[in-house]
């Protein structure tokens, strides 16, 4: 298997975040909507109708191009891709061909265990989706096909990578990064379960010593990251075995069979690769003016990768924390709002404490209560309170368990940590006289443990500290209690 190099290119279709379809004012129907409830004469291809392009879809296409470091072409042209299939009522799909909206971009991906790699993006173009075909109603298999045109005409951006991907893991990393960028830019929600992100894989093997590629095999319609990974690994194994048996891999279009965990040839000959593209006469060219490009750039703002690097540099966060905090645009904005509240002189540990609180307690609660990320700043705990809480905890004024209680009390109530500490009597006691008094009582109550500790058994300290915590009602600063006990026993 090591004798072959794997060459993979991905074609990703993402459903654009618009209210209406690409060329008609039909609403984008919820995937649960009734069949054919969002259709009109335009998207069902009635004679005499004319399409008009959705300005929001164009804007999102431009943003995609910018976010993927593409050249956004000043002029781009819609084209007809002709093929017959029942889910395509016009018998052609409006797409873009020789003059797409965006070209020549790149996506930087993280490699495991470390390092990164640039995957070039050949192009990103606008097109319309096809309808949905049903071959079964519930569990009842049909000997005919039912068609629902709700999805027909929904705007898509198709992003085609260069064949720069060399493994299933890299394909996974590329998709992960692409999804993060598209969600960040507000281009697509990328919910794979709803089919908002779909992926076709082109894969071929070549003997490491040989220059030319083997025949390209296309695997169509993969709808989860796991399916992409599994299909690639299975296809690598299949093609390797064929080559090793001395057979040639024919150019082929295949489907992924999830149940049997293998790719199978697509039986239909419908997809003959002769689409007879020609410029769409019903749609005039798109011109992206400099002003439109500038607006899109401003709205896009800082991209996740740049923000991650900045978080590491400015706040001393590690790669992992910075990655988690920039996984979502709203989350990163929340973290940034917190860091604005932290004193400018705050040590690096401060940022780490804030990050820990967000990736731990904050995340857990936000997920449990299903808080929409857009509501992080208004419906959770205010950045001022979160920073204060982190500071109180790291300064030892609040125990870990008391911090949790304060966090919960502050969530959605606007109460400050100080107010809650007073209200709940949770302030941690760091007063040395008080702690020493508790320590003496605790030693007196555990003479055996005290003797063991004096004889060199470090573990014997545990029960004595435990007693201090009990006597203080959990409020004693454990570190100071530890020190006080050691000091007394050493005397």
């Amino acid at each position: 298997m090591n004798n072959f190099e794997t060459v993979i290119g991905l074609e990703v279709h993402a459903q654009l975040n618009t209210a209406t379809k690409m060329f008609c004012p039909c609403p984008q129907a919820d995937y649960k909507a009734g069949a054919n409830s969002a259709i009109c004469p335009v998207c069902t291809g009635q004679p005499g109708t004319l399409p008009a392009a959705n300005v929001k879809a164009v804007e999102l296409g431009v943003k995609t191009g910018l976010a993927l470091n593409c050249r956004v072409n000043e002029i781009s042209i819609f084209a007809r891709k002709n093929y017959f299939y029942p889910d395509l009522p016009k018998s052609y799909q409006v797409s873009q061909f020789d003059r797409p909206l965006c070209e020549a971009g790149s996506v930087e991906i993280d490699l495991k265990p470390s390092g990164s790699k640039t995957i070039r993006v050949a192009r990103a173009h606008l097109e319309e989706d096809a309808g949905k075909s049903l071959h079964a109603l519930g569990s009842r298999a049909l000997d005919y096909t039912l068609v629902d045109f709700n999805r027909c005409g929904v705007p898509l951006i198709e992003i085609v990578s260069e064949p720069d991907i060399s493994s299933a893991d890299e394909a996974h990393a590329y998709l992960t990064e692409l999804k993060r960028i598209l969600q960040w830019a507000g281009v697509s929600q990328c919910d794979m379960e709803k089919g908002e992100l779909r992926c076709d894989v082109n894969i071929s093997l070549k003997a490491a010593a040989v220059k030319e590629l083997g025949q390209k095999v296309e695997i169509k319609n993969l709808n989860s990251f796991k399916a992409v990974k599994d299909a690639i690994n299975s296809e690598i194994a299949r093609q390797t075995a064929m080559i090793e048996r001395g057979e040639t891999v024919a150019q082929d279009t295949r489907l992924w069979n999830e149940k049997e965990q293998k790719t199978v040839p697509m039986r239909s000959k419908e997809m003959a690769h002769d689409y007879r593209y020609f410029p769409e006469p019903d749609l005039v060219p798109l011109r992206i003016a400099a002003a439109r490009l500038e607006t899109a750039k401003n709205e896009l703002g800082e991209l996740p990768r740049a923000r991650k690097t900045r978080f590491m540099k400015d706040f001393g966060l590690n790669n992992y924390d910075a990655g988690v905090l920039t996984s979502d645009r709203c989350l990163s904005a929340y973290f940034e709002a917190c860091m604005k509240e932290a004193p400018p002189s705050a040590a690096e540990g401060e940022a780490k404490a804030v990050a820990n609180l967000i990736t731990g307690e904050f995340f857990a609660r936000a997920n449990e209560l299903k808080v929409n990320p857009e509501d992080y700043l208004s419906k959770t705990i205010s950045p001022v309170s979160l920073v204060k809480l982190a500071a109180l905890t790291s300064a030892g004024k609040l125990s870990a368990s008391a911090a949790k209680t304060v966090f919960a009390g502050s969530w959605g109530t606007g109460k400050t940590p100080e107010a809650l500490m007073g209200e709940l009597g949770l302030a941690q006691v760091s007063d040395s006289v008080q702690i020493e008094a508790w320590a003496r009582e605790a030693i007196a109550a555990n003479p055996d443990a005290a003797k063991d500790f004096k004889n060199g058994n470090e573990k014997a300290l545990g029960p004595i500290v435990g007693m201090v915590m009990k006597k203080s009602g959990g409020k004693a600063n454990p570190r100071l209690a530890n020190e006080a006990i050691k000091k007394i026993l050493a005397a």
Partner: protein
Amino acid sequence: MKIEKKDVEYIADLSRLELTGEEKELYSAQLGDILSWMDELNKADTSKVEPTAHILGLENVLRSDLPEPFPDREAILKLAPQRELDFIKVPKVIE
């Protein structure tokens, strides 16, 4: 330019047309004539001309992203030769 019978058969297949032998002969000749005329056009020097996608000279005919549900979807469904529930029914498509 010569159009062979097999070219006509290929195009007919892509267009889902069933042609008789006579029709294939007829269309080979007619398409050949049309393409010969294209050869005539090809003699014009277009090396300094931008390819034209559209003749109107218009650009950016766009509509705003405001939903306007079509009020009579029944009229559309009625046009389908066959229907089941709210679906359009067609012969079985593999895959």
